[in-house]
């Protein structure tokens, strides 16, 4: 709830404008390594925003949204290779495909609740990965080469645009009737329904948005890699990272994924460079410790302290 922090609220718009301008100009001044790092950071934050809608606002923990990222990647690669579309158009199609798949899938899977949904989505993502591997058109397990040409800068701008869009979408959700309905059903779905909330529709809409965002991002990632295989795009590391970012920052908050993402990227970079052998171990351990220290995440903890100090 940013409403309790009026000072920050006023600062948000100018800050955001400055940040976006800096991010747009960044590729002009950065070297190859830095722009790669920036791309991966923006990508993870955008994925975290996607996940935050269904899992943070609607309360349906999904361990399988990465499936839509993989679908977007493969759809883009196949369209570019076979039909020679401009890649951004192909990536857009990949996002739409993810959304179209999410609607029937959500209709079925969102009947499950709590850990059943979480694990069911995990199983679903694994199944999609295996199926992609089994289709000959995708090069099966051995992968798919994309034609070279589009540079990292293009991919970066595409991803940045989606990230900004995802943040804007979240700001809107947080203030809208739709967002209030999602939060109500997160707290108690049956009560929400008896108060007139069409829960199935709200959930599927949230699920669709949480599929569209990774679906759009997947195409850029395929171009970035220039060679894709199932394990690379159905990446459990990216999935884990974005989930951790959202939780660390604060589930179901507007700025949680961003703050969590920035903190996480710093930590992740430092660890990855220094302890490649035990990176995963430290990462997992850190998540456990953070969860116990800040069970609600950075943003709510900060907002609570701020609200107390200003005496509201």
């Amino acid at each position, binding site marked *: 709830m940013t409403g309790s922090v009026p000072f920050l609220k006023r600062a948000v718009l100018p800050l955001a404008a400055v940040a976006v301008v800096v991010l747009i100009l960044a590729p002009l001044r950065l070297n190859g390594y830095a722009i790669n790092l920036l791309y991966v950071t923006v990508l993870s934050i955008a994925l975290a925003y996607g996940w935050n809608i269904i899992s943070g606002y609607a309360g349906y923990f999904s361990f399988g949204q990465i499936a839509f990222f993989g679908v977007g990647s493969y759809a883009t690669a196949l369209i570019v290779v076979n039909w020679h579309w401009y890649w951004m158009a192909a990536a857009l199609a990949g996002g739409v495909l993810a959304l179209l798949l999410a609607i029937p899938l959500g209709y079925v899977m969102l009947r499950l609740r709590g850990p059943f949904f979480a694990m069911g989505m995990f199983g679903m993502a694994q199944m999609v990965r295996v199926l992609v591997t089994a289709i000959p058109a995708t090069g099966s397990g051995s992968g798919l080469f994309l034609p070279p040409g589009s540079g990292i800068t293009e991919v970066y701008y595409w991803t940045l645009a989606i990230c900004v869009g995802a943040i804007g979408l979240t700001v809107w959700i947080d*203030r*809208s*009737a739709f967002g*209030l*309905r999602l*939060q*109500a059903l997160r*707290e*108690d779905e*049956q*009560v*929400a*329904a*008896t*108060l*007139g*909330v*069409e*829960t*199935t529709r709200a959930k599927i809409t949230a699920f669709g948005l949480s599929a569209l965002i990774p679906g759009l991002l997947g195409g850029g990632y395929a171009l970035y890699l220039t060679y894709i295989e199932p394990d690379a795009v159905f990446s459990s590391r990216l999935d884990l990272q974005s989930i951790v970012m959202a939780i660390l920052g604060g589930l179901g908050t507007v700025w949680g994924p961003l703050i969590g993402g920035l903190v996480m990227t710093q930590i992740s970079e430092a660890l990855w460079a220094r302890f490649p052998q035990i990176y995963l171990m430290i990462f997992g351990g850190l998540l456990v410790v953070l969860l116990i220290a800040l069970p609600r995440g950075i943003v709510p903890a900060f907002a609570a302290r701020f609200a107390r100090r200003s005496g509201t």
Partner: protein
Amino acid sequence: MTEPLLVVEGVSVAFGGVQALGDVSLEVREGEIFALIGPNGAGKTTLFNVISGVLRPDSGDVRFAGRSIVGWAPHRIARAGIARTYQIVRPFGRLSVVDNVAVGALVHARTIGQARNDARDVVAFVGLGAYADRPASSLTLTQRKRLEVARALALRPKLLLLDEVMAGLTPTEMDGMAEFVQHLSERGIAAVAGIEHVMRLVMRISHRIVVLDAGRRIAEGDPAAIQTDPAVIEAYLGAPLAGA
């Protein structure tokens, strides 16, 4: 004569061989205060679940304003004008009191701002105005009971289902709640109140009473008739209701 507001006709529900409701029928008219009394486990909550669409009956029909609502989704029933409260209060803990109520108000409001404004009025109406912006999890039990009622009222219902709304209240608070229900009744909102005890109040404010025992309707009538009904006296172990 037109059909009553709510008609429950021969509703039966069984849970794995246990008959929770057996062939229960009742009728509620507009603005009527209708008491559904019976001991714990008599089937009051089950009946509320059936009427509000949370539970589908095995057989029987429920008609509201002349239309059968069996099989309707709960949100559709809520929008049609039936609101309910829960016996065990279930606030949206992390949402503010106003937002709790605004969820129901969204059914009529065009924007979320309008829904919040409407919600503020209802919150003030039930006496929670001072707590409007607090998280619902910070309320006391009595306040949570009022929040339950406020959320239901925000739907602007024609029929209010109150599940054990008296339980846990002090005698003064009970009188306040009874007055409140009477006030709603004067404004044309019918109420079905499921109540285990508190016979004094039930007898004073109800227009009509149905007594449930072990899922079956054992008596129906006005307060005077119920107090002398032998089946009712039997069910309540011979306790004379008039003195309770």
